[in-house]
C-alpha cells in the first residue's frame, strides 16, 4: 500500500508539473503582463506540431525539437504581438478575451487544414520510455521523472530571470507602471514584445512536452483551455510560485481522487478548487502588489 501511495503521489506530481509546464507561459502573458490571452493553447499546439513535424519528417531527435518548438512559437508570438496583440494592451479585458478566443478558432481551423483532424503520432526516444524500478514495488515512469526534472530546472531559471536579471526588473517595472517606467528610460514596448514572445515560446515548449501524455490534434487549444486558465488564475495571477503550487496540488488531488474514488470522476478535483477559491479568492498565492 505504501508503495502504491508513493507511486500515486509521484504520478500526481508529474501530472502537476506537466500542467505547470503547459501554463507557465500564460503566467507570463496573463499573470505578469495582465493580458487575457485565451490563445495560449494555440501557441502550445504550434509547439506540438513543430516537434511532431521535425521528428517525423526531418528525423530530429525528441530533445532537439524542444528548443525548436520554443523558437517557433516565440517567433509567431512576436509577429502577432507586433501586428495584433500590441493594439489591445490598453483595451478592456473583454476585448482581449474576444480577440484571443477568435485567434483560438482560427488556429483550430488552420491546424485542421494543414494537418487534418486526426491525432498526431509521437514517439519518445527509448531512454524516456518505460519505467525505473526502485525496489519495494516502486516503479517510476521515466518520462515522468524527466518532466519533474525539466520542470524544476525551468522553474528555477524562470524565477531567476524575473527576480534577478535586469530584464526581469524592467518587465516588473513596465507592468507595474508603464508611464513611470518609460520616464526612467525603459523601452516599454520592446520589453513587452520580448516578454510576450517568451511567454509564447514557453507555451510551445509546454505543448511539445505535453503531446505524449495529452495527444495532439487541432482541438488541443480548446481541450487545454480550462485547465491552463485554472492553474494560472486560481494559483495566483501575477506570481510564478502560485501556479506551480496549484498545479502540483491539482495533479496530486486528481490522481489520488481517481484511484480511491473513481466513481466520483473529476468531482473531487473541482470541489477542491471551489473550496480553495472560497477560502482564497485572490488565488493560492495572493498578489503582493498594491493595486487590485
Amino acid at each position, binding site marked *: 500500500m505504501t508503495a*502504491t501511495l508513493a*507511486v*500515486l503521489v509521484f*504520478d500526481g506530481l*508529474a*501530472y502537476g508539473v506537466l500542467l505547470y509546464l503547459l501554463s507557465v507561459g500564460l503566467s507570463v502573458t496573463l499573470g505578469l503582463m495582465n493580458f487575457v490571452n485565451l490563445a495560449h493553447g494555440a501557441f502550445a499546439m504550434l509547439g506540438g506540431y513543430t516537434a511532431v513535424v521535425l521528428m517525423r519528417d526531418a528525423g530530429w531527435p525528441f530533445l532537439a525539437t524542444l528548443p525548436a518548438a520554443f523558437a517557433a512559437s516565440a517567433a509567431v508570438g512576436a509577429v502577432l504581438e507586433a501586428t495584433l496583440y500590441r493594439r489591445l494592451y490598453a483595451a478592456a479585458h473583454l476585448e482581449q478575451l474576444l480577440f484571443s478566443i477568435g485567434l483560438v478558432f482560427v488556429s483550430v481551423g488552420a491546424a*485542421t487544414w494543414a494537418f*487534418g*483532424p*486526426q*491525432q*498526431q*503520432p*509521437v*514517439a519518445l526516444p527509448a531512454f524516456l*520510455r*518505460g*519505467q525505473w524500478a526502485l525496489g519495494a514495488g516502486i*516503479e517510476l*515512469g521515466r*518520462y515522468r521523472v524527466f518532466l519533474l526534472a525539466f520542470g524544476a530546472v525551468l522553474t528555477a531559471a524562470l524565477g531567476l530571470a524575473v527576480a534577478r536579471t535586469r530584464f526581469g526588473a524592467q518587465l516588473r517595472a513596465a507592468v507595474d507602471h508603464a508611464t513611470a517606467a518609460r520616464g526612467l528610460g525603459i523601452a516599454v514596448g520592446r520589453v513587452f514584445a520580448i516578454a510576450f514572445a517568451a511567454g509564447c515560446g514557453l507555451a510551445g515548449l509546454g505543448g511539445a512536452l505535453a503531446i*505524449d*501524455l*495529452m*495527444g495532439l*490534434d*487541432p*482541438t488541443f487549444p*480548446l*481541450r487545454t483551455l480550462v*485547465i491552463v486558465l485554472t492553474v494560472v488564475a486560481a494559483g495566483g495571477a501575477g506570481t510564478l510560485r502560485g501556479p506551480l503550487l496549484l498545479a502540483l496540488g491539482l495533479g496530486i488531488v*486528481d*490522481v*489520488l*481522487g*481517481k*484511484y480511491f474514488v*473513481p*466513481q466520483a*470522476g*473529476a468531482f473531487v478535483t473541482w470541489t477542491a478548487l471551489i473550496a480553495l477559491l472560497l477560502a482564497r479568492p485572490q488565488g493560492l498565492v495572493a498578489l503582493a502588489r498594491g493595486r487590485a
Partner: protein
Amino acid sequence: MSDPVSNAFPVDPQRGTPADMAARSRRRVLAGLGALPLTGLASRLAQAAPDEPLRIGLIVTLSGPFAEFGHQMENGVRLWLRQRGDSVAGRRVELLLKDDTGPAPDVAKRLAIELATRDKVHVLAGFAFTPNAVAAAPVATQAKLPMLVMNAASAGVTQKSPYIARTSFTLPQVSAPMGQWAAKNGVKRAATLVSDYAPGIDAETAFRKAFEAAGGQLADAVRVPLKNPEFAPFLQKLKDAKPDAVFVFLPSGEPAIAFMKGFDERGLKAAGIRLLATGDVTDDASIDAIGDAALGTITTHHWSMAHDSPLNRAYVKLWTDAYGAKTRPNQVSVASWDAMNALWAALERTRGVADGDTLIGAMKGLRIDSPRGPVTLDAATRDITQTVYVRRVEKRDGRLFNVEFDRFADVRADVA
C-alpha cells in the same frame, strides 16, 4: 366510358330512398372519376420519379474533436460515388453535407428537419453518435425518410424509427465475442476499463455477461471520464488488481492513444497482463499514432485494413489512390461505403422508386458484399448481422495492422 355508374355500382333498391340512392351514386361517380386520373398520375409519377435527382442528406461531424469521423464518412461515400458513378437505376444522385459538430443531438435534429423540409432529401445518412441518431429518428419517422446509420453503435438504435437501417456495428456485437474468446483462451480473471457513457457501458455489460457465462471471473470494472482522462491512477488500479487480462473500450482517437501508451509505459504489458479491446481502440486511423505500444493487443471488430479478401484489397487501393498512403481508412469509412452499397442495391430493386416505405422495405433482409465480407441487414430489425473477427496487432512491412486470426460468424447486432 359509356355508363360507369350502372356498370361499376349496380343500384340496390333495398339500400334506401331513390333520393338517397341518387346522392350516394353521385358521390360514387365522383369518387370513381377522381380515382381514375389519380391512379394514372401515380403511375406517371412512378415513371417520372427517376428523372428527378435523388438527394442524400449526410449529417456528419466535420469540425471539432471528432472531425475524423466526418472525414472518414465523407471519404467513404465519395469513394463509392467515384467507383460506381453518381447515378443509380437511372437516377442522378446528389449529396448534401451538413456538419453536426460532434455529439450534439439538438444540432443533428435541426439539420435533419432542414434536410427533410427545405432541401426535400430522399434519404438521411451519417450519424457518428448515438444521441444524434436518436434525436434525428423521429424526423425520419414523420417524413418517412430512410435513415442510414453509418456509425452510432449503441444497441437498439434501429428501434428508434421503422425507417432506420444500420451498416456499422453495435458494441455488444463486438464485445460479447471477446468475452467468449477470452474465457476459451486461458483468461480466468479479467478486469474491464471503459469510457463512462452509454456505448462504454454497453461494451462492459456485453463482455461481462459473455465472459462470466463462459466461466470467467471479473476482477474489477473501471469506468473513466470521456474527456481528458489522465490514465495514471486508473492504470495503477488495474495493475494492483492483477488480472490475467484487461478488456478495454474507449472511443478511438486521443483517449485510446493515451491509454495504450500508458499501458505499455506503466509496465502492465511487462507484468504479463494481456490487453483485450474492441477494435475502436486500435482502429486503423489512429494505430500509427499509438505506435509500437499497440503490438500484441488482441481486439474484436468487424473490419480491418488487413482483412484478406479481393474486395477489401480493392477498397484499400481505391482509398490510397484517392487520398494518399498517409491517411488510413477505418471502419467508419467502410460502414459509409456500405451504406451507399445498400442504398444502391435497394434502388436497383425498386427501379429507382425512393419513397420511404418502398426503399426501407427493399433493405430488409438485404445481403451485400462488403469489404469486410458478406453482411445482412436483418429483415426484422434493419440492423447489421456480420462476422466479427479476432485480431492481433502486428507489424507488416514496417506498419502496424490488426491481423485477423479467428472469427465469430453471423453475429447479430442485438446479441444478448
